[in-house]
C-alpha cells in the first residue's frame, strides 16, 4: 500500500506528478491511499511526498485523451475527499479503454462529470456573486476594490483570470476562506492561505439595492426558481439579499393595492399630446393617377390576409412610360425584406438573362402578380408557397391599376401565376409559352417561364439549355417591343 499525501486545495500539478509516477510503476488504484495534508499544519508536516516508485521501463508510455486533462483539472478543485482516488482510477482504466470518457453512463465517468459540474457551477457563481467594494483613495492613479466571497470548492485560482479579463483597469483583491486572488494591473497573484473579511461597505450598494427592489414585479412571485439559482448560502455576502424577505412579504398586498387602484383621469399632458397629434398638418396626397400615389396606397393594402405575414408590400418599379412591363409571381424572402421586386437569387438569374439579351432593366416596369410574400416558416427559413386563386384575384386589382397607368405596349408574364393573373388562362405553360395573346386595350401579352424555374433545374447541360432558351425568349421580347414601338 502506497500513501500519497496531497495538499488538497485544488492544485492539479501535485496530483498529476504523483499519479504519473504511480501509473508508470504499474501500481494499481487499489494499492494507493490518497490522503489530504492539513494546510500549514505542523502535525502533518512529516507527510511530505514520499519517494515515488521507479517507473517500469518495459511498460507502454502513459497516454490520456485531452478531454481527461480538463476533466481532472476541474475535479481536483472539488472538496470531495475521494476525488484523487477517483481520478487515478479513471487514469488507470483509460490505459486499457481509450473510449472510457465517451461512456457517460459509466459510474466512474458519471461521478467525475458530476464533480466537475459542481466545480464549474461554483466557479460560475463566483463570477456572478462576487461584490466589489471600493477602497477609498487611489493607488498609482488606479481605483482599488475589495471583495469577500465564500465558495464551496477550491475555485479561486481557477476563476481569477476571468476577473483579470473583466476588471483590467482597476486594482482588486478577492479574499476567500480558500485563498486570495489579486490584480495590480500587471500581475495576477494567488495566495492559498485563508483570507480575511474586514467587512467593507460601499455607498453604491444603496443605489444597487434601490434598483434590485424596483425591478422586481410583485405580481409574479416564483421563490423556488429564485432559490434554485441563488442558494441561500451566498446571501450573506450579497448587499441586496436582506431586502428579499420584505419584498416577499409585501408582494401580495402590493398586487391587491394595484388591483384596487381604480384608473384615474389621464394627466394633463396626455390631452396636450392628443391635441398636438390632431393638429398635425395632413400630408398632402401625392398627385392622383401616378404610379407613386398607387404605390403609397398599396403600402397599407389589407385586401387579403397575406399582409399580416409578410414584411411589406413589394410594389412594382420602373419608368411610368415604359413600353414593356414584366410580371412575376410574388416576392421571395429577399424581396420581402428589401421591399423591391427581383433582388434575391431569382433576381440575379433574371438580371443576367436580361443583360445577355441586351435589355436594360431600368427601361422595364417590373412587378409581381401578388404583392405580398407567401411562405411557410420552417426552422430558421421561410419556404416559398404558391399563392392561391383567391389571393391572385384580390391582388389583380393592383395589377390592373398598374397596367392602366403604365399603358405598356407589351406585357411579359413570367410563369403560370402571372399568366393566370393577366389573362385568366390556366393551361400548362408548355402550351402557352411564346404564343402572344391580346389583352384589353390592345396590349400584347407574351407568356414565358418564371426565372426561378432555372434555379430548380439541376446543374449541367439541361440547365444551360433552359437558360439559353429563356435568354432567347427575352431577346424575342426585345425585338417585339422595338417593332411595336415603331408602329
Amino acid at each position, binding site marked *: 500500500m502506497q500513501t500519497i499525501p496531497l495538499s488538497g486545495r485544488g492544485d492539479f500539478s501535485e496530483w498529476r506528478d504523483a499519479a504519473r509516477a504511480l501509473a508508470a510503476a504499474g501500481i494499481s488504484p487499489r494499492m494507493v491511499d490518497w490522503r489530504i495534508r492539513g494546510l500549514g499544519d505542523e502535525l502533518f508536516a512529516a507527510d511530505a511526498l514520499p519517494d515515488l516508485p521507479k517507473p517500469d521501463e518495459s511498460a507502454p508510455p502513459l497516454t490520456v485523451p485531452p478531454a481527461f486533462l480538463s476533466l481532472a483539472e476541474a475535479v481536483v478543485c472539488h472538496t470531495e475527499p475521494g476525488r484523487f482516488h477517483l481520478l487515478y482510477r479513471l487514469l488507470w482504466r483509460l490505459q486499457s479503454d481509450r473510449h472510457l470518457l465517451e461512456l457517460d453512463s459509466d459510474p466512474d465517468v458519471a461521478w467525475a462529470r458530476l464533480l466537475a459540474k459542481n466545480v464549474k457551477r461554483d466557479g460560475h457563481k463566483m463570477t456572478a456573486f462576487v461584490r466589489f467594494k471600493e477602497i477609498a483613495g487611489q493607488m498609482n492613479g488606479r481605483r482599488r*476594490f475589495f471583495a469577500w466571497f465564500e465558495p464551496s470548492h477550491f475555485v479561486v485560482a481557477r476563476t481569477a483570470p476571468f476577473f483579470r479579463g473583466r476588471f483590467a483597469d482597476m486594482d482588486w483583491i478577492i479574499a476567500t476562506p480558500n485563498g486570495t486572488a489579486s490584480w495590480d494591473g500587471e500581475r495576477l497573484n494567488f495566495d492559498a492561505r485563508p483570507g480575511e473579511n474586514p467587512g467593507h461597505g460601499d455607498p453604491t450598494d444603496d*443605489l444597487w439595492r434601490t434598483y434590485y427592489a424596483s425591478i422586481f414585479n410583485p405580481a409574479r412571485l416564483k421563490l423556488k426558481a429564485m432559490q434554485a439559482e441563488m442558494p441561500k448560502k451566498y446571501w450573506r455576502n450579497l448587499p441586496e439579499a436582506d431586502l428579499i424577505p420584505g419584498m416577499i412579504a409585501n408582494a401580495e398586498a402590493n398586487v391587491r393595492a394595484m388591483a384596487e387602484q381604480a384608473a384615474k383621469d389621464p394627466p394633463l399632458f396626455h390631452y396636450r*399630446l392628443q391635441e398636438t397629434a390632431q393638429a398635425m398638418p395632413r400630408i398632402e396626397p401625392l398627385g392622383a393617377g401616378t404610379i407613386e400615389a398607387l404605390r403609397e396606397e398599396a403600402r397599407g393594402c389589407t385586401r387579403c390576409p397575406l399582409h399580416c405575414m409578410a414584411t411589406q408590400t413589394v410594389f412594382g418599379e420602373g419608368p411610368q412610360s415604359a413600353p414593356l412591363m414584366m410580371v412575376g409571381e410574388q416576392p421571395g424572402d429577399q424581396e420581402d425584406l428589401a421591399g423591391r421586386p427581383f433582388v434575391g437569387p431569382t433576381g440575379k438569374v433574371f438580371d443576367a438573362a436580361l443583360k445577355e439579351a441586351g435589355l436594360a432593366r431600368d427601361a422595364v416596369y417590373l412587378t409581381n402578380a401578388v404583392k405580398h410574400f407567401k411562405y411557410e*416558416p*420552417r426552422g430558421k427559413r421561410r419556404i416559398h408557397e404558391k399563392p392561391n386563386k383567391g389571393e391572385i384575384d384580390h391582388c389583380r386589382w393592383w395589377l390592373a391599376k398598374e397596367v392602366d397607368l403604365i399603358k405598356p405596349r407589351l406585357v411579359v408574364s413570367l410563369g403560370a401565376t402571372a399568366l393566370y393573373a393577366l389573362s385568366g388562362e390556366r393551361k400548362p405553360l408548355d402550351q402557352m409559352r411564346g404564343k402572344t395573346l391580346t389583352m384589353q386595350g390592345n396590349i400584347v401579352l407574351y407568356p414565358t417561364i418564371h426565372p426561378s424555374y432555372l434555379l430548380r433545374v439541376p446543374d449541367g447541360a439541361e440547365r444551360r439549355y433552359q437558360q439559353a432558351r429563356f435568354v432567347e425568349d427575352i431577346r424575342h421580347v426585345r425585338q417585339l417591343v422595338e417593332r411595336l414601338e415603331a408602329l
Partner: protein
Amino acid sequence: MKKSLQQRLAILSDAAKYDASCASSGTVKRDSARTGGLGSTEGAGICHAYAPDGRCISLLKILLTNFCIFDCAYCINRSSSNVERARFTPEEVVWLTLEFYRRNYIEGLFLSSGIIRSPDHTMGEMVRVARDLRTVHGFRGYIHLKSIPDAAPELIEEAGLYADRLSLNIELPTDAGLGRFAPEKRPEGIRRAMGELRRKIEAADDPTLQTKRRKRFVPGGQSTQMIVGADGADDATILKTSARLYSGYGLKRVYYSAFSPIPDASRALPLIKPPLVREHRLYQADWLYRFYGFGVEEITGATGGMLDLDMDPKLAWALANRQDFPVDVNRAERERLLRVPGLGTKTVTSILSSRRFRRLRLEDLARLGVSLRKVRAFIEAEGWVPLRLADRADLKALFAPKPEQLSLL
C-alpha cells in the same frame, strides 16, 4: 423639486420591469485584458442576482425616460397613465452602468426609453449612451438597446456598431390586436425595421474581399417580446407569429411576457394575475420549435389552439401520438429520441455517444440524469419494455399534477 438620482433610479427601473429579457448571452467573446478598459463578455451570460419573481438580473435594465407620447393600453408608461415620471441624462446612465459594473452587480446595460419629442430624438439619445460607453470609457461589457420603431436608419446603423443586441418589441401577436391596444404603433413598420436589421446583420457577416474579418455589427443579434394574455390571441396564434419572426428575421429570441396588472391600468384591460404557467408553456413550445424539430401545428394541433396547462407540450404531444412509442434508446435515430418526453438535447447526445460502446439499460439512463419516472413509459432499453402504452387508459393521470385550490385574484 428635482428628484435625486436614487429616486429616479427607482422610477425608471420600476418602469422597465415589464421587459422580460435581461439576457446577456449570444454575443462574441471579448475582454479588456489587452485593451486595458473595463469589461468582458463570455458568450454565455452571467446572472448576478435573482429577484423573488424568479427572474435573473444580468443587466442594468432601465429607461432613459418614462415620459412617452404614445398611448399603448398595456404599457405603464403610456401618456394617459398617472405614473410618476422621471428622466436620466445620458451621462447619468453611463455613470450608473460603469459604477454598477465595477462592483460586479451587472453584465452590462439594457437601455430602453419612452418616446419623447420624436423617435429620432429618443433613439439619438440612446445611441449617445452606447457610444460614450464604448468610445470614451473603453467599456467592453454587454449593451442591449431597445430600438425605437420609426427611428432613422442611420441611427439604427450606428446603434448596431456599439450594441451587442438590438430589440424591437412586436408587443402583440396579431396586427388587429396591436391596432386595438397600441394605436400609434404600426405593425408593418416594426416588421420592416426587423427585416432591415436582418439584412444589415447578414451584410456585415459577409467576409470582405480584403480580409476575412467580419464587421462587428449587433453580434448578439436581435430579439423581441410579445405580451401574452392582454388580448384574446390563443397559443397557436402566438406560436405562429414567433415562427414567422424566427424564420423571417433570424431573431435570437422571442420573449413571452405574461400580461401583468399595472397600477392605474387602462380600463380596456383585464386586471388579472399574470398567467405564469401559460407563459412557461409557451417557452417550452418555443424550444420544441427551435431545437427539437417540432412544427407549430404539431404542438398546438391536438389541443384546439391552447397548450395544456397541466403538462408540458412535449408530453402532451407524446400522449396524443402514442403510436410513435415506445422508442428504443439503443437503436432509434436522433430525431425520434428528441421526441421522447424527458429527454433533452444534451441527454440525447450522451445517449448517442454512449450506445456506440454499450447497450443502455435504465440504470445507465438514470446516471445520465434522466428522470426514469418521466421516460420509462415511452422507451425501450436493454432489459426494459414498457407495458403497451395504448393499453393504459390512465397514462395521462400518471403525469397529472395534484389538484390545487383556485386563488381569488
